């Protein structure tokens, strides 16, 4: 009751249960027009979001196969246990985490650095900001064709290493013990590195967010710090970074979620290979759903991934709130 008392709506609602029901019915009747006008949005959300979500959740407990429908039935949590025992699912999860680990901190750091440089570049900074944002406008699937950079015979990476920086190449060959030209996407470790590198292509969004964060920092703080004799690093540590705390939280949540859902880059660059070295969870789910048509199993894996995303986002939010 204590909590009810805190609610302003209930404070004005009649006290008895019967009167309260009548009161709410009256409230609903009076809001028909509101319901009517919000109906299209509610219908669209129900048809395209809520219903598929509930249907997918139900499917995750069945062995539903899109083509071989015979024998479809309820299998309990079998799909979930099968996913946890599936070596490709585990590899996919591991690869996703490795990618996240390399993508998130570096992309955030790089975006922060670029945003800081743009701030100090005046009008030229706006141009840089625009140029950095252009790749974001290009579909990721198209940007993935830069995999040609890493192609063995016609790739720019090999060409530059052989033709322009031969002396460095020779050193690399000595240190790492392999020859160049190299099939970068054909070697497990290098393929992952190539995907991580390519993923920085879409850094523009983060730069824009950080730039907006920079714009919100009062200039007088910097002026006061300068009067006190604070150097650039001290100003960054004491003013910039704390003021960008919320922006950083938003950017990192977005980056983590983007990383956990990485799909088009590896799908186009390596198709998950060689072997399963660049198979990410999303691709494995996609393969099961739309190539093997095992929708029940794919839905179970999708919900497991959703759990991971929710857990990470929740953790991040909790940390930023505590901050």
């Amino acid at each position, binding site marked *: 009751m204590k909590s009810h008392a805190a609610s302003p709506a209930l404070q004005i609602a009649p006290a008895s249960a019967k009167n309260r029901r009548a009161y709410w019915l009256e409230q609903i009747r009076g809001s028909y027009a509101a319901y009517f006008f919000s109906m299209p949005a509610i219908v669209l959300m129900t048809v395209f979001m809520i219903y598929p979500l509930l249907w997918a959740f139900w499917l995750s407990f069945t062995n539903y196969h899109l083509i071989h429908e015979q024998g479809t039935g309820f299998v309990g949590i079998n799909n979930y246990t099968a996913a946890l025992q599936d070596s490709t699912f585990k590899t996919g999860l591991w690869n996703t985490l490795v990618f996240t680990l390399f993508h998130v901190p570096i992309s955030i750091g790089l975006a922060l650095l670029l945003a800081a440089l743009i701030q100090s570049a005046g009008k030229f900074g706006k141009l840089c900001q625009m140029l950095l944002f252009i790749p974001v406008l290009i579909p990721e699937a198209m940007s993935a064709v830069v995999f040609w950079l890493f192609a*063995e015979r016609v790739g720019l990476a090999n060409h530059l290493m052989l033709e322009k920086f031969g002396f460095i190449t020779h050193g690399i060959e000595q240190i790492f013990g392999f020859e160049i030209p190299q099939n970068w996407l054909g070697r497990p470790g290098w393929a992952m590195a190539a995907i991580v590198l390519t993923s920085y292509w879409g850094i523009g969004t983060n730069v824009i967010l950080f730039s907006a964060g920079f714009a919100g920092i009062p200039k007088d703080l910097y002026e006061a710090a300068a009067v006190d004799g604070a150097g650039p690093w001290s100003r960054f540590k004491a003013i910039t970074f704390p003021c960008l705390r919320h922006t950083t939280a938003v950017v990192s949540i977005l980056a983590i979620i983007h990383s956990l859902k990485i799909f088009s880059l590896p799908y186009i660059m390596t198709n998950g*290979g060689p*072997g399963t070295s660049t198979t990410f969870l999303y691709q494995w789910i996609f393969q099961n759903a739309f*190539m093997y048509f095992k929708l029940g199993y794919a839905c179970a894996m999708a919900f497991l991934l959703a759990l991971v995303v929710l857990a990470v986002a929740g953790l991040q939010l909790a940390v930023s709130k505590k901050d």
Partner: protein
Amino acid sequence: MAVAGLTLSRRRFLLGAASVGVAFSGLSCSRQEHVQRKDKVRVMALPWMFGKYPIREAKERFEKRHPGVEVELLKSPGESCQKLLVAMLSGRSDCDVLLGANETDVINFAARDLLLPWDDFIASNPKLMRDRFVSTFFDMVNFGGIQYALPVSGELICLSVNKKMARDAGLLNDNGRIRFAKTWSETFDYAKRLSVDLNGDGKVDRYGFAINWSFGEHIFFATVNAAEGRVRGANNEILIDVPALREMMALSREAASKGHLNLGCLTDRNSDRNDMKAGLAAMIMTHHSRWREVQEVLGDGATTVMPVPGPHTGSSCAFSLNVLIPRNSHAIELGRKFAEEEMFAPYFSGYAFTKYGKLPCHRSAIENDASEEYHWLQEWADRSTHRPLVRDIAQLIDSIERSQARYLANEIDLDAMFSGLKADMSLLDLRDIREDLKKA
């Protein structure tokens, strides 16, 4: 309730909303009966086929021959027919004739009773009878005695070799023909001899051999068939761990480490043919049509073919590209007529063969082609077989390709590769799809 000047009671409002909902769902779920059209036929083909087959010319010819009839050309969604299968299962009619389905697609469609058999049409059209086709491909899409599709082109796995490079390496005989390698060790010896260090820096600049691992299951079953003369064992099990495969894989890894074999196809399915066109590859193991396709750049007669090594010379893994009529076609007769008059006319598959090497399944297509490769390929096609028609074929393919890639990338050894593959296969549904056909 008052909306825009109208007053509705709550009951009427809910009743109205429910009626609209029921009407919409009824409309969307009802199966619609279509009247057969006499003036329009929708012809669908895989997107890549528009570049390699004279489909647009076929449309023009047909429209000219049948005034008042419109041919609508459509590209199928994606590179395979799987999405169409899902669409057809939901009762949708996307095309009246489909070109490009392989035998696995055909059995998947047929097992769900989505195809119209050709048998009655064949009975009245001697041109389409079995003896007019390369029998292997014709029989690939005949299930339970019913002809569910007709093959337009066939593909089989073999080795394509650059003749000039082979001559330089001393691999041609006195007649200028390639000496067929009989074993895998001989083939990899060819690879070594064909690999060249052009600038003398100790590195291979033009590699001798590439295997297209992007079609890993075709490579596997071609190797098995050439070695064993079959791809299934005595108990109908899929043969996967045979000595020839082990030898081929082990030699591949060794050759890759020496630079004689290129592994670009692990991630780029076109790297072998592109490299061959660019003069960077001397010999490739992939679909036979590349042999002729690369001649567009290298010149007529610049390449030749060689069978997959093994005691069963010429036995390989093949697949067919077929034309089929969906059961829910809106123009069945026009569709059949279009197929008969255009797709099985000599110009149609003849063009695809002459320019791109797609082996015509109808024997009339290449009556005047004297190239010995054409005759060899027909002979080898007769000895070839398709990959197993199992329910989880997509997973089997992925599993094979993953295993190959992990082995070639030095992640696992040969025993681990085959034991992992067997473990994967034990989890798959490897029942023959033809069992579903009986139920349908």
